[in-house]
């Protein structure tokens, strides 16, 4: 049993309250009708299976019921960070110690995607 930090609840909660939902940051093709079968098949069925840093989608199923992202190390199982939907990870394959430049996103943009404002 371990604790996971929910970025929406802002505190560590028991693993039992969470559920994994697979790989994160999978963008739906903008125009599905224009996709080849291969592109659509890749989008629907094919997932990365890296050795090392992996970005995953999790849901705080018993709790705030929000989806969020976890950066996890698939060898050590260490959870490196959790971040809200719409944000970018600071730990990536290129930046295994954290500090990816992509992490800077305008807060208003994040808030909008998180559905905080009306």
């Amino acid at each position: 049993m371990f604790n996971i930090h929910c970025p929406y609840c802002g505190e560590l909660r028991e693993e039992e309250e969470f559920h994994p939902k697979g790989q994160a940051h999978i963008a739906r093709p903008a125009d599905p009708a224009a996709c080849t079968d291969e592109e659509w098949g890749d989008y629907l069925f094919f997932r990365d299976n890296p050795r090392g840093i992996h970005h995953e989608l999790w849901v705080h199923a018993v709790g705030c019921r929000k989806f969020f992202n976890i950066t996890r190390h698939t060898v050590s199982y260490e959870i490196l960070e959790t971040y809200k939907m719409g944000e970018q990870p600071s730990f990536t394959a290129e930046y295994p110690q954290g500090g990816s430049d992509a992490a800077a996103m305008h807060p208003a943009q994040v808030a909008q995607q998180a559905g905080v404002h009306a």
Partner: protein
Amino acid sequence: MSNVAIFDTRTDAKIPLESPLAYAYRRFGAPAATARSRVTLRERPFLGHLILRGGAIVLDEAVREVLGISLPGEPQGLVLDAEGERSIQWLSPDEWLVIVPGGEEFTLENRLREALAGAHFAISNVSGGQTLVELEGEAARELLMKSVIYDVHPSHFPVGKGVTTVFAKTTVILRRPSDARWELVVRRSFADYTYRWLLDAGEAHDIGVER
């Protein structure tokens, strides 16, 4: 006024009403509180439960205007009015649970809809779907420690906090409106299970049921 069909779920018709625990009382009994009881259980049925969804800022304005209390903006927040009869609890960044005395919820819903006119929001009346169970007494915390996975130590769970968490094999909304009292908002369909669990776990503390 939003274009939503709403109706008062309470009628004047003489229909017998039973609390979600009525069957459990008959089937499994309700041990009376004695001098040895270190924890008492009390159901508060037929309260008005509303789920508010929308942006925190617009909802806060509407709730202040209609209910006179502010919306808890911080996660796990629970705010009560001066009498302690009405409460608003943070459930998620865009979702709040409002509990008011039974019968007030339809008026409240209408007034909130009026105050929120034009905003992007949703209000659902969930009064029939859940019930409130109170635990009081010196052993209430010990009983909860056996039942929920959340840390209920006072340093981690001060008065004015409320969380949704795992209770035995189901879920509850656990809240602490005052020092001595804990509230469990349980689903109606799990009320029996929760009640039986609490009786069983509370046996060691001579749990008493007030009806």
